[in-house]
């Protein structure tokens, strides 16, 4: 009885994302046909390239790792009614702090050093996001504005640090480089192929396990602790939360800090698992924005986000194989876009429905 209900509940929340995904692939197929290719060949390449072997799956996993973090980050903020567009910036400060921690604690053995790196990334992200949280809570500046602005601030700050503070020229006395010093071997996350040789050449690393652990932590935090209860209450109805003695201001800051710490961790894990250093760049890394899509498709639920992050990982990894099969990689962009549009449309229709109801029935608490 209870299990049945649970299955129904899960089905109800998964229904629309699944339909959206199917539609995404269908629309993608239309464009593949329009470009004189076979959708069967294309999708075969897509899935073979991303799932058919340990090594191709490994490639999918390493693409999944950062967006699993950022998706989770954005979902936490969403649950509190906040739109954290600043995961980009938080990712960037997380990454640069990871390099700093790696340098500063370089004498430490492997595990403590990894912990120091990840925590410093998380702290930096949390701090960065808290600026927006604080401004929102105390003087009501909308978080969308501040987080976008902080993204650029973070990018330029990171470039400056890479150039003038953590540059090999400054720290090691070598010639000037366009990137920071690299992590020492003790500060690098283990590659999966060192544990399971079948992963072969893939770049997958143990960061995925840190990400999955965070999914679990966030799930517990949101749904099993009083902190999560308060965050969710503020998100769903701030007036009622206030009435229930919940401090709105405090919870907005907490929510942004948690969200930022996850995005910061994404940066730190990406550095420790894959990049080992931070380069000067004029571009945003993009994981923060992808995280918005991941959170949306995952319905802001930690478990849902595992699957949606994996889906986006598959698409992004498989697109290379599709390209090799002669299909333009923009198709993947179309599929992603369609999925997002449909999932967003579902959410929109829910919001509109609520509005419509409120309009026709202005009388509070009357007939349903």
């Amino acid at each position, binding site marked *: 009885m209870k299990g049945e209900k649970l299955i129904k509940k899960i089905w109800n929340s998964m229904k629309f994302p699944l339909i959206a995904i199917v539609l995404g692939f269908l629309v993608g197929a239309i464009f593949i046909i329009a470009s004189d290719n076979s959708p069967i060949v294309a999708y075969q390449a897509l899935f073979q390239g991303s799932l058919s072997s340990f090594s191709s799956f490994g490639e999918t996993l390493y693409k999944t790792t950062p967006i699993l973090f950022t998706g989770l980050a954005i979902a936490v903020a969403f649950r509190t009614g906040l739109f954290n567009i600043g995961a980009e910036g938080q990712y960037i400060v997380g990454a640069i702090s990871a390099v700093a921690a790696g340098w500063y604690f370089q004498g430490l053995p492997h595990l403590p050093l990894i912990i120091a790196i990840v925590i410093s990334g998380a702290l930096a992200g949390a701090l960065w996001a808290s600026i927006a949280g604080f401004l929102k809570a105390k003087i009501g500046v909308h978080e969308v504005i501040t987080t976008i602005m902080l993204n650029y601030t973070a990018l330029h700050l990171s470039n400056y640090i890479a150039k003038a503070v953590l540059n090999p020229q400054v720290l090691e006395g070598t010639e000037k480089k366009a990137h920071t010093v690299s992590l020492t071997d003790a500060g690098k996350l283990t590659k999966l192929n060192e544990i399971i040789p079948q992963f072969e050449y893939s770049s997958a690393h143990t960061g995925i396990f840190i990400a999955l652990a965070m999914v679990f932590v966030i799930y517990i935090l949101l749904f099993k602790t*009083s902190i999560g209860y308060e965050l969710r209450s503020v998100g769903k109805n701030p007036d009622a939360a206030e009435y229930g*003695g919940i401090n709105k201001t405090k919870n907005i800051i907490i929510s942004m800090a948690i969200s930022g710490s996850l995005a910061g961790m994404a940066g730190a894990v990406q550095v420790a698992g894959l990049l080992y250093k931070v380069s000067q760049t004029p571009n945003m890394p993009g994981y923060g924005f992808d995280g918005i899509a991941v959170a949306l498709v995952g319905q802001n639920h930690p478990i849902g986000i595992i699957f949606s992050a994996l889906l986006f990982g598959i698409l992004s990894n498989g697109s290379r194989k599709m390209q090799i099969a002669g299909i333009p990689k923009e198709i993947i962009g179309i599929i992603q876009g369609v999925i997002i549009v449909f999932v967003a449309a579902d959410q929109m229709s829910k919001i509109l429905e609520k509005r419509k109801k409120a309009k026709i029935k202005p009388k509070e608490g009357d*007939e349903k």
Partner: protein
Amino acid sequence: MSNVVEMKNITKIFPGVIANDDIDFNLKKGEIHVLLGENGAGKTTLMNILYGLYRPTSGSIFINGEKTIIKDPNTAIEKGIGMVHQHFMLVQTFTVAENIVLGREPQKGLSIDMEVANAKVREISEKFGLKVNPEAKVMDLSVGIQQRVEILKALYRGAEILILDEPTAVLTPQEIEELGVIMKNLVAEGKSIILITHKLKEVMSISDRVTVIRRGKFIDTISTQDTDTDHLAELMVGRKVNLTVDKQTKEFTGNKVLEIKDLHVLDNRFLEAVKGISFNVNEGEIFALAGVDGNGQSQLIEAITGLRKIKSGMVFINGEDVTKYSSRKIIEQGVGHIPEDRQKRGLVLDHDLAENMILGYHYKEPFTKKLMMNYSEIHKHAKRLIKEFDVRTPSENVTAHSLSGGNQQKAIVAREFHKDLKVLIAAQPTRGLDVGSIEFVHKKIVEARNNGTAVLLVSLELDEVLALADRIGVIYDGRIVGSLDAKDADEKKLGIMMAGGTINKVEGGEDI
């Protein structure tokens, strides 16, 4: 007499809910016909169908004997149907006449001929005895007069059939009486009126016939002269209801539990809404604040419960200065609060019932231990309260959203009464509730009083104030304009004070 409206076998199904189940309704020419039912019974849905806001799932409508499909409000207006909603739809900065002709303006070239408009409004208003000044700005008018403007708007559009949705909810007793006269005038001029209400006294004093619906089903149509309030209540609820509150008089210890001293509070526009209010509520006493909506009650309650900043003045609970306390610290003083807007303040509608039933003490044991919530305790607690307070819900796992208004209110009452109450602040605790639930909530409030809780009741319903209060204060324009012992109070005295009159001084009522 002929039927001007005939609704036959009307069924309206919303996803998951049958709002109207095979309902028959007919309106005779020149009668005042009350549509009576509990909240959630489907009254407004039925009338929204007649006015074209909803399409019925099945059934047919005849206007003046002719089968009509009303696809939108414009069709309804063409057919001579006018609806006055509970919440007015007037442009505040426009004049009365401008509001009335809006959308059908008499024109002179490209501009609006205001002279003709004013004259027309004057003509209709005199014909039906609805006195208004066509050139007055709507924002300067009282709620009662605004309602007249709404009625005039419908008449200007040629309404022969008027639907009034809970028109008395926002009026003072005197205004209600005037509305009664207006309705009689309209009927005398050949109009027909449908009045939606759940107030039994109004039914008896105003209507010719009553149609009762319960839980979406047609129960009966009867002539008002053949019935009485007890019988109507029974039809409405489906069982015998005790309409009077059982309350023993008692001695008061005189211990001041809640003390308010010269409180000043601003509203959202930074205007002073509470202008220096002082009062005490004693242990085991119900102090009621009567008043028309919008006279500072909401801001006063929010200030006392820590939800709104206090500009100046003091609040004491059991002698402790709580003026600057956060809402949580005030709750911890033993304050229970039934908020006036249950959906805005009282519940997180998207949370399930179990999570809603701990709001306010969710962080305390046994519900939370070292930050971890104990959901089995939380569900046990919810189940207990659901049973004890008879909250009608399939289970504690459904969202608060899916409950009817009355059951949402019961859930809040259950939650607040679970606290160790020193002070209970009940703001319109029975707003929108049906007779059965009102009886229950009243019983619980009196129970709390008998157990020594100091109760501050804020209500727009004079019946409720008179039935429950030990002492009554009247709030008008942010001040308490008079207070009297419940046994000296009656509807007339309170009504005059509620409108800003000063009968208390003339009749010797005490000032605070």
